[in-house]
């Protein structure tokens, strides 16, 4: 893999991060409505609003406000929460690991479920198994993850009493409890993601299995196992990995809702609470964190793609 390619992807990531800070800044500052007034609510006197505006620097020119904000963000100063009397960085630090773990479990689960089913579906095309698999994909795509989570909760926690209803335990405190709290959220979050992976992998594998090079491998007498898992899979995985990367965004959108459903103290829940209470520094901080994680995940996926497919890196 070329150093040039790596540099290109890194540069792209930096551009995206820069662009996203502009978007985050504009969302809060340009949209009609006065953040200071919105924060204080109807009770805020004009004097109080003016004081807050001065405190937040809202009277300075926009570009100056932006530079100050970005400059501070680069040094880790994301401001203070208006509501929780803690620094935003502190709040994020406490929660980001939880969200990352939840997303990671959902991702692993989704891949483990999706790959075998899509291989089965692609190699036994138009059999009952294939049709059932494709129906499951459609339902998985259409089902709201929070509702699926609620149903899982109803069945496994409320009715059967196998798992805790909600809440969160850190893996450092009790690993077993941690997992028993994370199972249902991860399944709920991973289901739609798994459906997307299945759809992509099945279609790309069907396509790959019709390629000339698969016939060449068979003409060489290679065992069907090797043909499928090495010669076909390596090619079929290229679109799959791409989708896994792009849809990490979907995973993070889902995490926001799932964390609220299962009362998991992650950045999704933090963000919703911040939006509800118009705690703008926290809203900005969570948006920034999510974009950073998403961009970094995509960088990893790009590099993984280049490792799988030598053509990408050398173009």
């Amino acid at each position, binding site marked *: 893999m070329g150093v040039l390619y790596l540099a290109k992807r890194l540069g792209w990531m930096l551009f995206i991060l820069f662009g996203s800070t502009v978007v985050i800044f504009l969302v809060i500052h340009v949209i009609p409505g006065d953040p200071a007034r919105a924060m204080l609510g109807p009770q805020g006197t004009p004097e109080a609003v003016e004081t807050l505006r001065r405190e937040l620097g809202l009277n300075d020119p926009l570009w100056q406000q932006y530079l100050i904000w970005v400059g501070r963000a680069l040094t880790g100063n994301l401001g203070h929460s208006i509501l929780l009397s803690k620094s935003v960085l502190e709040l994020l630090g406490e929660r980001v690991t939880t969200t990352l773990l939840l997303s990671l479990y959902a991702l692993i689960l989704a891949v483990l479920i999706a790959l075998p089913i899509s291989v089965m579906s692609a190699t036994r095309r138009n059999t009952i198994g294939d049709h059932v698999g494709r129906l499951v994909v459609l339902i998985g795509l259409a089902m709201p993850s929070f509702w699926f989570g609620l149903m899982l909760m109803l069945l496994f926690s409320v009715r059967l009493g196998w798992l805790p209803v909600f809440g969160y335990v850190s893996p450092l405190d009790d690993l077993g409890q941690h997992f028993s709290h994370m199972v249902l959220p991860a399944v709920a979050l991973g289901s739609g993601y798994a459906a997307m992976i299945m759809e992509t992998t099945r279609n790309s594998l069907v396509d790959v299995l019709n390629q000339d090079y698969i016939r*060449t491998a068979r*003409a060489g*007498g*290679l065992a069907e196992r090797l043909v499928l898992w090495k010669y076909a899979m390596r090619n079929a995985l290229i679109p799959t990995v791409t989708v896994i990367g792009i849809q990490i965004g979907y995973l993070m959108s889902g995490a926001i809702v799932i964390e609220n459903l299962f009362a998991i103290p992650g950045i999704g829940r933090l963000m919703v609470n911040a939006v509800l209470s118009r705690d703008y520094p926290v809203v900005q901080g969570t948006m920034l964190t999510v974009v950073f994680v998403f961009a970094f995940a995509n960088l990893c996926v790009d590099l993984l793609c280049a490792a799988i497919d*030598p053509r990408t890196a050398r173009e």
Partner: protein
Amino acid sequence: MRLIPISAATDPLLEVRDLQVRIPTRRGDLLAVDGVDLTVGAGEIVGVVGESGSGKTLTAYAIMGLLSAPAVISRGVIRFRGQDLQALAAEERGRMRGSAMSMVFQEPLTALNPVFPVGTQIRDVIRRHTNLSDRSIRGRILELLDHVGIAGPERVAAAYPFELSGGMRQRILIAMAIACGPSLVIADEPTTALDTTIQAQILELLRRLVRDDGISLLLISHDFGIVADLCQRVYVMYAGQVVEHATAGQLFDRPRHPYTSALLGCMPAARDGDAPLDTIEGTVPTVIDPKALCRFADRCGYAQARCTEQSPPRQTFGVVQDALCFRAAELTLPGLVTPSLTDGVLP
């Protein structure tokens, strides 16, 4: 100049009898290959010629055991070194593919896996059929690449297909095909996708492999020029049937089937001076409900009433030649007139 006997009367290496390949479709079963007889003797180069859709490639796949669903062999026998291939278990058949018989494909770009170095792809084939150590496999790969005329085999073995030219890739595919010392190589349009100069080099390579390594070659092509250049005997296929079988010389001198003659008329070098090239009107029919008629009748300039009423008989001429036509004996059909193309074929 050819010392290899033309007839394959004694125990052919490959013998195909009455082969039929069926492809079920919504409108009924398609007879893609219908009653093909074909033999290849040891050390022989045999050609199969026909337009696309004539069933020549499916015949090759049937021999290799590469037919993919829904296509199936519905009738006939394929014997290789006297052994009935259809009686073999899938595992034994797999062990034979790539070692005793192997295949070279038309599109050297798409026929190689884009995400593995070419050396890896050759290695997997050798590893499948031998117990050589990785070290000796490595040596064998370099030797093979050298043998097929690749300079700098070390570098090429580590390269990915997209880094190599079309001619190089075809040499790689040939190296892969001969890696485990096959006695039969089937080459399906091996030069169609290549430049003319590269074409000549690849054909020369194939000729050398037959001469030096004792390989038999079944060459599938739509191009009479290539067949004329290389083959001793030729099968002409049309709509799933062999319509004519002859030595290359007989075929170009005195074709017995109107289709053969028409194909020869389509060759750029076939006609004198400024005479326009012929074309055969219409397309190869797909045969779903075989009726008793000559399948070429609707495109044939010599067709008579009986051609659309009965199946034509196979008439033989001399030791080798036969044709599937009512009028094979009575007609004197134009063959190939330009001598340059047939150099090295005619005595």
